[in-house]
C-alpha cells in the first residue's frame, strides 16, 4: 500500500496527470449537474444519443482532416440537440423514434466515414478509444484544459444563476409556464449546454460511456436524499468522487480510464441502493 501511494504521488508531479485530474473533475461536475436536469425531465436517453451524434461528427472532422475536431463536433452536436428537443415539442414522446434513428445513424455513418477516410494504421484501435474513452485524458494540451475549464465555469454559473427556475421548470413545467417563466428559451439553453458537456465528456470516458457520467450520480443521489437541493449537491459530490477514484485506479492499475470511472459509479450506485433497502 505505501508503495502504491508513493507511485501515485510520483505521478502527480507530472503536468499531464495534474491536467487530467482538473479536467476530469470539472467534466464530471458538469455532467452530474446536467444529469439532475435530464433525469428528472425524463430526457436521460437524450444524453446517450447525443454522444453518438458527437461520435459521427468526430468522424466527419477526421475525414475532412480538421486539426481541431471540436470545431465540427460542437456545432453539429448542438444543432442535433436543439432539433431533438424541438421535435418532441419539449416532451420528447413523439421524438422517440427520431432519437433512435439519429443515434444509430450517427454511429454507423461515423464508423463508415472513419473506414473510408482514415489514413491511420490502427483504425479499430482509434474507433475503440473514441467509443470507450482513451488515454487522451492523459494527453491533454494546456489549450484543451483552458477550454474545458471555461466551459465548466459557464455551466456551473448557468446552473447556479438559474437554479430556482430550473427547479420550477422540471418540477412542473405547466405551472412555470403559467406563472410566466420562458420555458422555450430555457429548453434551448439546456440543449446547448447538454451538447457542449457531452462533447467534452467524450474525451474523458468515450462516446458510449458518456451517459453513465450523466445518469449514475443523480440516480445514486436520489437514493440518499429527498430534497432537490440535497440530490443536486450529493450528485455533484458523488460524481467528482467517482471520477477522482477512477482516474487514480486507472493510473495505478493501468485500466482504461473511462470504464474504470463508470465501474466506480456502478459500485456507488449499488451501495446507495443497498443503503436505501437497509434504511
Amino acid at each position, binding site marked *: 500500500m505505501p508503495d502504491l501511494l508513493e507511485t501515485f504521488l510520483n505521478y502527480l508531479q507530472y503536468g499531464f496527470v495534474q491536467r487530467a485530474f482538473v479536467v476530469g473533475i470539472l467534466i464530471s461536475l458538469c455532467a452530474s449537474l446536467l444529469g439532475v436536469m435530464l433525469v428528472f425531465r425524463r430526457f436521460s436517453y437524450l444524453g446517450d444519443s447525443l454522444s453518438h451524434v458527437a461520435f459521427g461528427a468526430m468522424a466527419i472532422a477526421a475525414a475532412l482532416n480538421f486539426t481541431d475536431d471540436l470545431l465540427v463536433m460542437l456545432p453539429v452536436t448542438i444543432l442535433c440537440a436543439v432539433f431533438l428537443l424541438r421535435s418532441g415539442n419539449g416532451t420528447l414522446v413523439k421524438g422517440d423514434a427520431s432519437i433512435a434513428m439519429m443515434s444509430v445513424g450517427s454511429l454507423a455513418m461515423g464508423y463508415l466515414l472513419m473506414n473510408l477516410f482514415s489514413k491511420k494504421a490502427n483504425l479499430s484501435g482509434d474507433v475503440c478509444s473514441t467509443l470507450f474513452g482513451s488515454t487522451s485524458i492523459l494527453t491533454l494540451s494546456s489549450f484543451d484544459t483552458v477550454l474545458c475549464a471555461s466551459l465548466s465555469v459557464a455551466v456551473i454559473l448557468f446552473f447556479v444563476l438559474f437554479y*430556482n427556475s430550473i427547479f420550477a421548470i422540471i*418540477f412542473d413545467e405547466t*405551472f412555470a*409556464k*403559467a*406563472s*410566466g417563466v420562458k420555458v422555450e428559451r430555457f429548453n434551448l439553453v439546456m440543449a446547448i449546454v447538454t451538447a457542449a458537456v457531452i462533447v467534452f465528456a467524450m474525451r474523458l470516458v468515450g462516446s458510449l460511456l458518456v451517459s453513465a457520467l450523466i445518469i449514475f450520480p443523480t440516480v445514486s443521489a436520489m437514493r440518499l436524499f429527498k*430534497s432537490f437541493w440535497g440530490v443536486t449537491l450529493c450528485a455533484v459530490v458523488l460524481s467528482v468522487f467517482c471520477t477522482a477514484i477512477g482516474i487514480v485506479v486507472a493510473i495505478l492499475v493501468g485500466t482504461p480510464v473511462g470504464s474504470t470511472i463508470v465501474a466506480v459509479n456502478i459500485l456507488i450506485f449499488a451501495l446507495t441502493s443497498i443503503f436505501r433497502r437497509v434504511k
Partner: protein
Amino acid sequence: MILEVKKLLVGYHKKPVAAELNFSVAPGDFLCIVGTNGAGKSTLLKTLLGLIRPISGNIIYQVPSKEIGYLPQQNRIPKNFPASVLEIVLSGRNAHRSWRPFYSAEDKRMAFENMERLNVLQYANKCLRELSGGEQQRVLLARALCAGDKLLFLDEPVASLDPEATADFYGLLKTLNESGLTIVMVTHDEQEGLENASQVLHVGNPNFYGDLEEYRARFT
C-alpha cells in the same frame, strides 16, 4: 371586475372546441366551470392561463399575471421527484424573483406563512411523495397562493381525493374565498363542488353563465 371574457373562442389549430364564451369574474367571486368530458373546460382554463392562444375574442385581466395562482391537475406531478415541501411552496415565488438568482427573505416569509395557513408547515422538510393525497393538494395550493393571492385557478382539484379529504379541501376553499380570494374552479363534481359557488359557467351544448340558483333551476 378581475377578469372579463368577451366573445372568446378556444380550441386547437384554429378549430374551436366550444361555442363563444362570455363571462366575467368580480373580486370575491367563486366561479365553477362545469361541462362534460371533452366540452372544452381544460382548453378554456389553459387559454385563460396563457398556455395556449385564443382563436378569437378577448380576455381582460384587471390583476397583473403575477398575482394569479394556479393548482394543476394532480396527476401532472412526477411521482419520484425528490422535492421537499418547502422547495415546492417556495417555487411559487419564482415569477416574483425577476432577475435575482435567489429568493429573498420576503419570499421565504410568504412561503412559511402560506404553509402555516394551509396546515402543512410541519411537513416543510418532508418529500411530497411521503404525504397523503389531501396533504399533497394543500402543499400545491400553498404554492399557488405564493404565486398570487388575488385570483386562483383550480383544475379538478379533488379528482384523486377520498371523500373525507374532498370535504376538507372544499372547506379550505370556502375559508379562502371568504377571506377575499377570488376562485375559478374547473370541476366534475356537480354536487358538493358547486355548493360554495357564487357563479357557474357551463361549457358545452348549450353554454350557460349565471348564478348557482339559475344554473340549478335550468339544468336539474
